[in-house]
């Protein structure tokens, strides 16, 4: 019985006296948090895929109401897009300063990122309020329901991203750039860049394709 279980990987020339129970070259990720957070982001991606699919199905069901060409203000969307893209690169600068161990510069770039995010959010709230004021609220047509759900979910993510960002600025202020805070800032970096990536889909699929005749 023990003969059949004996390792024969060595070609039978000189069998080792003890079986080897691990492969020396095996490599585990040393820090599972970032991988776990990436898996969360991918599940979030599926939520957005479902909302995009809903918009793709219902996006032309106007119920005799206003269409995207009547409602969308492309210059406003362009400003919004630039704000989010700028906030992405300022977060990148914060991460670079973090790796150089410069707390002040990290906090400065994080603050600028937060302000750009707030600018994005306030323009989006202004847009929503304007649409509801026009009578084009989410209950007007299937198109507007899908629009408010998709864009609103993205806006909600940005809101929580800003809450997280402020929390991290307080944490860094209290404890400095300790390993835990570095790990959290890297997770937030993934989250923030991921939101920008989703926005690429939103402005292309919803706004730009919505105004096409």
């Amino acid at each position, binding site marked *: 019985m023990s003969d059949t279980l004996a390792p024969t990987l060595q070609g039978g020339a000189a069998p080792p006296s003890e079986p080897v129970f691990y492969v020396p070259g095996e490599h585990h990720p040393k820090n599972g948090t970032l991988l776990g957070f990436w898996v969360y982001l991918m599940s979030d991606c599926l939520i957005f895929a479902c909302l995009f699919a809903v918009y793709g199905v219902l996006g032309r069901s106007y119920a005799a109401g206003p269409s995207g060409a009547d409602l969308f203000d492309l210059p406003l969307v362009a400003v919004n897009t630039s704000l989010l893209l700028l906030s992405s690169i300022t977060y*990148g600068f914060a991460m670079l300063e973090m790796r150089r161990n410069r707390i002040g510069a990290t906090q400065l770039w994080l603050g600028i990122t937060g302000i750009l995010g707030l600018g994005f959010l306030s323009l989006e709230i202004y847009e929503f309020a304007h649409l509801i004021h026009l009578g084009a609220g989410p209950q007007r047509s299937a198109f507007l329901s899908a629009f408010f759900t998709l864009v609103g979910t993205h806006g909600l993510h940005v809101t929580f991203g800003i809450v997280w960002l402020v929390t991290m600025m307080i944490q860094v202020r209290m404890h400095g750039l300790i390993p835990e805070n570095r790990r959290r800032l890297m997770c937030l970096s993934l989250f923030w860049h991921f939101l920008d990536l989703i926005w690429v889909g939103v402005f292309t699929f919803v706004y730009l394709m919505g105004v096409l005749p």
Partner: protein
Amino acid sequence: MSSHMDNLADRGHHGHGHDHHDDHDDDGASHGTMKSYVTGFILAAILTAIPFWLVMDRVFESSRTTALIILAFAMVQIVVHLVYFLHMDTKSESGWNMLALIFTLVLVVITLSGSIWIMYHLNSNMMPMSIHDMRKMP
């Protein structure tokens, strides 16, 4: 000489031209550099500006052409974001990140194309279009 060869092999292996130890230091994930962030930002800005210009100035007569072109730009820009901002490569977290991403992409494609395909067919089969059609209903 051997260290030089190692360095060359490392670069060829890695594919980005960064030093291996600089790119994956202690946590298995990839990091950006100033150069990668600025490159990504410039590419993303260009890839954003062109679709806006195409739509706002009505460069193409046909909506279908414009839609296909801006969708292609969006896909390229998403790849740019993944590579330069999210630092996706086949090495980060020993490839598990890439595996999860590919799995998600497959699900996204099935969800989107499947929903749109099925729902458009349902739309055309759903409602009798006229009294004439209605008479033929069982």
